[in-house]
């Protein structure tokens, strides 16, 4: 019996496929970008931007998930975008940098962030410099790259963001 609303068809093939969904465990593939941020919309947005740039990206909504994903990927992570304010961000950056020599690190910064914010354990210091910041910590993790999250009501343009991220990646030297 099909009591579905009009136009809402049963789709057995999809049902079977979805039943086999597994928690994120990407298969071996080419090098990629790992995006770690709690903001789902921004993560999806960045995924599209990276895709338009021809770069493969994978998402994680918190650091633990990012680390678990990285362990399972079995491929080099060439770029890490991470929100340094997330719990465990410093440890995550250190672990991923150690496992992926030469990995680019780009910090996601809130648009409302103060010029010199620090993360919870004060090990990553951010010194803003017209949108490009310098970060360093006593353990030797350094990056000069940040990407500012758009403020909630700021007009957003895909073209502009593709250009912005493209420029950021072009500037980003392997570390």
């Amino acid at each position, binding site marked *: 019996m099909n009591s579905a609303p009009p136009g809402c068809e049963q789709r057995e093939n999809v*049902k079977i496929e979805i039943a086999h969904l597994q928690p994120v465990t990407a298969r071996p593939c080419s090098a990629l970008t790992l995006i770690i941020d709690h903001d789902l919309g921004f993560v999806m947005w960045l995924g599209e931007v990276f895709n338009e740039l021809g770069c*493969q990206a994978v998402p994680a909504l918190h650091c633990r998930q990012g680390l678990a994903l990285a362990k399972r990927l079995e491929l080099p992570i060439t770029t890490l975008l991470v929100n340094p304010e997330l719990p465990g961000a410093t440890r995550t950056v250190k672990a991923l940098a150690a496992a992926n020599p030469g990995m680019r690190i780009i910090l996601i910064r809130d648009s409302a962030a103060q010029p010199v914010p620090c993360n919870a354990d004060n090990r990553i210091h951010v010194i803003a410099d017209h949108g490009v910041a310098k970060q360093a910590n006593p353990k030797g993790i350094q990056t000069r790259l940040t990407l500012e999250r758009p403020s909630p009501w700021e*007009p957003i343009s895909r073209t502009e963001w593709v250009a912005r991220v493209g420029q950021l990646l072009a500037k980003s030297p392997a570390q």
Partner: protein
Amino acid sequence: MSVGSIAVWPLERRSRERFPLALAVEYRLLDYDERWGAGKTCNISSTGALFEVSERRLLSGSIELLVSWPCLLDGVCALKLVMKGRVVRSEGRGVAIESRYHEFRTAGVRAARKRKD
């Protein structure tokens, strides 16, 4: 009304705090055992999503969305955002949901290849 016209969508009352994204979406109405449909997202945030269904219908109750990640891993492995919540507005083809839970999952290489075929 196209996906690209979200700025004037009458359903959209919070257009800029969500990110405009036109991604393939499949949904399941949890209160109507195994009712499936498909469409395209208009925007997504941590708290909800607006999407456009393929055929005009009214949706209500609990819902599960499967949103495709923009790229396939290694060209074959599909990554999906699984979002569960409830329909808060449904007009014409537009459906807004409030999210209660979301996570990323893969469908695996085998499922992705099957879909390609």
